[in-house]
């Protein structure tokens, strides 16, 4: 079947604008993760969904960041009033629930805030 998909693949926005990033996980994967990776940096955890609930939001850097997941499938990460330091590649991953299994990553969304 299809892997994890993300859209858009690239997003250029102006400082202060809001952006929405979308993730379609693998069908049947109830766990969904958002990460971001800044240039030359490691992977930074943002938020974890189990079904539609988010038991771990500890990685969201500020209240400008929010995420939701509906129907236990698609997730949207919203960044309000974007800042230049928000520029990064935003990666989504999904995995089977509660199994410590591998996480399957999407291709990411490269966000550039001018």
């Amino acid at each position: 079947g299809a892997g994890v998909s993300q859209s858009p693949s690239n997003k250029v926005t102006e400082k202060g604008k809001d952006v929405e990033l979308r993730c379609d996980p693998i069908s049947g994967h109830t766990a969904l993760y958002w990460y971001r990776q800044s240039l030359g940096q490691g992977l930074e955890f943002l938020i974890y969904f189990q079904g539609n609930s988010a038991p771990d939001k500890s990685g969201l850097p500020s209240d400008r960041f929010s995420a939701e997941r509906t129907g236990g499938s698609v997730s949207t990460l919203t960044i309000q009033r974007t800042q230049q330091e928000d520029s990064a590649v935003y990666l989504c991953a999904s995995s089977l629930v509660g199994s410590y299994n591998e996480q399957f990553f999407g291709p990411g969304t490269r966000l550039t805030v001018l």
Partner: protein
Amino acid sequence: SQQGEEDPQALSIQEGENATMNCSYKTSINNLQWYRQNSGRGLVHLILIRSNEREKHSGRLRVTLDTSKKSSSLLITASRAADTASYFCAPLSIQGAQKLVFGQGTRLTINP
């Protein structure tokens, strides 16, 4: 911290040679996973080794785990140009969201 630390930071070898990368961590783990990231940004899961396993093979990959030393190694045999990438280890704790925490990784370059 759950983060794994990869060593060396960079490794450059000739095609056909073997490449060994190491990972050290600090917490108690349920399993440890290795991932590869190409320059094109895609992150791919390579192999998972559970805490009660000592060695695991997958194709040209061999992973070892020493929980007493809190360390793991990834061996790539008969390297190919396509193996050029950054490699990350991710120790997964017994509790929590099983979120991946990567270090800086090992940047592997295979020279033709």
